[in-house]
């Protein structure tokens, strides 16, 4: 009697254990299969840049049969005119970097002003600022174009239409993120600094900015990614081929080559996102922290 009872008990335990192992296996299988689907297009893309054009679309296998660097050699060539992939990437970063720097400076100033001070009109301005989180860019594109056109910024060789607005804290997400972060920093240090005779600007630079650094780095990384991926902005505001950034250049190279020279097009595309891939791998924890803490769009 007692014997059968222990037997069923151990059977039940074995069954639970079996079930646990099955569910663990199922989890890993799902993760791996879905993960492969997610990464496969990127792996295939890397492989395809080393394939012959005749091979590219014939097999799902990402490893090239007869590897060639012809795609990359062609990608370095110009399509005519004084623009090639390197020139285009240089153009991209010549406005992305000022955009990142100006966005950070203006956003930190604004966040500091709103989070640490009371002044006339504080609340109404704060509400207006928060409302901007819900103002979709699509409603601003056309009138902004008309405005920049009036200012003479459209087609400016210095990318004025792209750079200047960032000096005025137009990225509301970042202000919001920085304010959230500032709220969790105690005011003791600032008060001590004030007693030591620091004025508000010195306090900002010496006390606040160092403590805000993690949030600032997150903002800078996201701004870098978004600006270098931006397509509509340059499409509207850059109209001389020599000034085209990488995004426009890649689109044009696809249109020019579609149908015959895919290894060149894919190599050009891959080169254009290599800096972003490097930045992502160098700083992936900051990306994940930033997106989980502030809830950034992405």
């Amino acid at each position, binding site marked *: 009697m007692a014997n059968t009872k222990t037997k069923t008990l151990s059977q039940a335990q074995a069954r639970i254990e079996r079930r646990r192992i099955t569910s663990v296996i199922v989890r890993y299988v799902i993760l791996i299969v879905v993960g492969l689907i997610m990464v496969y297009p990127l792996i*295939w893309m890397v492989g395809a840049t080393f394939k012959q054009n005749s091979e590219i679309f014939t097999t799902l296998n990402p490893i090239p049969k007869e590897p060639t660097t012809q795609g990359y050699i062609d990608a370095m060539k110009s399509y005519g005119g004084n623009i090639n992939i390197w020139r285009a990437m240089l153009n991209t970063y010549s406005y992305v970097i000022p955009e990142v720097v100006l966005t950070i400076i203006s956003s930190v100033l604004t966040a500091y002003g*709103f989070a640490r*001070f009371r002044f006339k009109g504080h609340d109404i301005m704060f509400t207006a600022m928060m409302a901007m989180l819900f103002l979709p860019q699509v409603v601003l594109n056309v*009138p902004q174009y008309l*405005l920049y056109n009036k200012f003479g910024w459209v087609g400016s060789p210095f990318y004025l239409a792209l750079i200047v607005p960032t000096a005025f*804290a137009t990225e509301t997400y970042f202000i919001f993120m920085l304010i959230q972060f500032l709220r969790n920093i105690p005011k003791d240090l600032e008060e001590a600094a004030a007693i030591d005779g620091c004025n508000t600007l010195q306090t900002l630079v010496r006390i606040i900015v160092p403590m805000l650094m993690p949030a600032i780095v997150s903002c800078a990384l996201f701004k870098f990614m978004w600006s270098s*991926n931006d397509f509509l902005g340059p499409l509207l505001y850059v109209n001389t081929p020599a000034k085209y950034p990488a995004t426009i250049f890649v689109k044009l190279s696809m249109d020019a080559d579609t149908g015959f020279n895919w290894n060149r097009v894919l190599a050009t595309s891959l080169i*254009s996102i290599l800096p972003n891939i490097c930045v992502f791998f160098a700083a992936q924890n900051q990306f994940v922290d930033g997106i989980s803490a502030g809830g950034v769009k*992405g």
Partner: protein
Amino acid sequence: MKTKKKNKFIKNNVGFFFVIPWLIGFCVFKAYPFLSSFFYSFTDYNLFKGITKFTLENYANVFMNAAERKSLIITFKYAFMTVPLKLVAALFIAYILNFKIKGVNFFRTAYYIPSILGGSVAIAVLWKALFQDDGLIRTAFAAIGIEMPHFMSNPSWALFMICLLRVWQFGSAMVIFLAALKGVSNDLYEAASIDGAGKWTQFFHITVPLITPVIFYNLVTQLVQAFQEFNGPYIITKGGPLGSTTLMSLLIYNNAFTSYNMGKACAQAWVLFAILMVFTAIAFWSQKHWVYYADEDGR
């Protein structure tokens, strides 16, 4: 005396000086364009001919003109296909990753990469290489005897393909879900499993209710983004075939920057804006019925 008073005023309002750049930006780059766009939407403003008359036609046309109405319907289809698929995928994978998985960081990275690169032109180019009629998917599957649909030339598949590009980028929503799931206390699951609740029951009765604020947040942000999608259709399909992927933002672009009908484009943008506001308002209004905030009393 006067300077003293002035100094005091400055001292009391010193914070204002820090927000001056923002205030200028707000007035010049946000408020003015926003309001002027509303004004233009009631005119026949053409970039080269200027304004000749005031009219309500722009708004009437959004609903009466066949092509514009089609674009509006397609935009809804796109958003309502993309957002649920994306959120379900994100929550499902985040739920699995939240078990004690070995190599969780590796998987998280793999799932997150498409989100970080997905907005770039390079990925749109890749999508075209994969899905065009003589592209990888059709050719490679034909080689093993499976006939895949014409993603580029069949109108209903074309829209689906554009949707897939965005669903593929579910990683950012997943990372947000994962952070929320980490915050759900383990005690609740233990208590539930002692009561005999299976994994699925636990998921729907504990996990989902507890993370509704995050589901809500993701829902609103994803909807707002989906309604504004531009790059995918512009680069991959150019709005075709037969206008089947001409989303509203692409239609607005075409009106404003290929035919220079600024008034018309502004009206379309305002309709899209109104729709987004309605959805955001519905989401905010309805959240008190289904969103659970742990720090509220009596709920």
